């Protein structure tokens, strides 16, 4: 089992650990998931997401064209220091992984899911030519700082971060070392993701805690992203689901939706033209019942129409929240559906996403 550079730091903070994607990761700290969640929404929390892959690819235009085979973005339109959410696509159009890619000096930073990163790198490498160089940066940690106070807190430690626009990044200096910060995150809050050398990550975290940012575990990360309607790989996304079914058409560049030229294009084109048979939706149970992953979804006439892929209690909306896939004709917002929990059917509605909305910094 691998550990991040902050393992002992988490331990001293009273973290409970769980095995996650081959890493021992904090699921929660002393405050517990609900308090950690609320704290992120009301103030600021930091997350150690160093288990995620920080993959750097360098090369010129031919590298970009190689990446375009497997990532359905128009690389020409990615500006310097701009980040984009997208995917690695397989030959059938299924999602190998979802990712954030940022154009930096001499290439791209790609943030990959921990559980997928080794396979991702193989898949990316297959598309690259000899001109491209690539490296998984194990010498770097990744810290997310999220919440309405994230900007004020980080600005006192690293001058200039407040100028960053949403889904944009830049290099900054911390303890004489070059670090890269993007204005992004996966909680539905304003915030930053900070790529920082392992050797100084603890110094940064200590400053964050001094400024009253609280440690947040994977438990609250999950409730936060679910309220924000964001997909989690292995739940809403997998190799058998394509981005159109996942209702993430927007994460394929407009030009690429018209001209294709990437893996799985034939299937994706078909779904773009004819519509999809099943689609990802938000599901809001009417009562208090929680619909967990694997819960069957029925129409209100009793026809089985889909399945829940993630579900929990949303502390900020104070009600259960879930996402799942339903047959497209049942996907209209506010459509009444039924969820089967412990052998009993309960009322629910197709809900618009996100369940919880906060405005990002433009």
């Amino acid at each position: 089992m691998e550990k991040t550079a902050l393992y002992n730091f988490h331990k001293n903070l009273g973290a409970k650990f769980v095995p996650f994607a081959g890493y021992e990761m904090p699921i929660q700290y002393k405050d517990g998931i609900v308090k950690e969640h609320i704290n992120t929404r009301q103030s600021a929390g930091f997350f150690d997401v160093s288990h995620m892959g920080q993959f750097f690819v360098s090369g010129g235009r031919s590298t970009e064209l190689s990446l375009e085979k497997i990532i359905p973005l128009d690389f020409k339109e990615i500006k310097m220091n701009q980040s984009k959410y997208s995917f690695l696509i397989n030959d059938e159009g299924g999602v190998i992984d979802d990712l954030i890619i940022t154009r930096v000096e001499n290439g791209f930073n790609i943030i990959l899911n921990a559980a997928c990163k080794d396979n991702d790198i193989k898949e990316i490498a297959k598309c690259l030519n000899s001109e491209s160089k690539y490296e998984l940066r194990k010498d770097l940690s990744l810290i997310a700082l999220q919440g309405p106070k994230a900007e004020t807190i980080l600005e006192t430690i690293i001058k200039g971060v407040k100028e960053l626009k949403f889904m944009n990044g830049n290099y900054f200096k911390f303890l004489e070392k070059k670090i890269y910060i993007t204005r992004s995150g996966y909680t539905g809050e304003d915030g930053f993701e900070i790529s920082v050398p392992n050797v100084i990550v603890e110094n940064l975290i200590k400053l964050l805690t001094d400024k009253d940012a609280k440690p947040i575990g994977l438990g609250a990360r999950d409730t936060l992203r679910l309220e924000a309607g964001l997909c989690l790989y292995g739940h809403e996304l997998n190799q058998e689901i394509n981005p159109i079914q996942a209702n993430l058409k927007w994460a394929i560049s407009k030009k690429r939706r018209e001209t294709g030229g990437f893996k799985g294009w034939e299937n994706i084109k078909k779904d773009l033209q004819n519509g999809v048979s099943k689609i990802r939706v938000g599901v809001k149970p009417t009562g208090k019942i929680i619909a967990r992953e694997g819960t069957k979804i029925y129409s209100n006439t009793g026809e089985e129409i889909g399945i829940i892929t993630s579900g929990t209690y949303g502390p900020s909306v104070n009600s259960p929240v879930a996402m799942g896939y339903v047959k497209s004709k049942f996907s209209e917002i506010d459509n009444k559906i039924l969820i089967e929990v412990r052998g009993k059917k309960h009322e629910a509605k197709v809900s618009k996403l996100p369940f919880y909305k906060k405005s990002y910094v433009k």
Partner: protein
Amino acid sequence: MSEKKYSKKHEWIMLDGESATVGISKHATEMLGDIVFVELPEKGKSLNKEEKAAVVESTKAASDVYTPVSGEIMETNQPIVDDPSNVNKDPENNGWFFKIKVKDKSELDSLMSQPDYEKFVKDNPN
């Protein structure tokens, strides 16, 4: 009222005359974390010892609560359904789950005393 007893599945039970009050231990709530949903049995339902009686859910997962003795459900604690955090706040008093009419008091004999339960928890940390 008699001595509070504990099951290996982390329920507590306290006998009072012909009926007993059942809940989950403080240790159980600490393992579960924040409880966000509680489902209680219907009044009048007859259950056998160690049969599923209730459900508690944390943000992470759902867990079953079993009855440590056989009997008929007489009363349930609605305040923990309305606000499940009441279980975390006071698991072994106000956070009780249900009262059950005890069919056979000898079923309590096989349950653990508080010191025995504390030792059991220490020996079985998960």
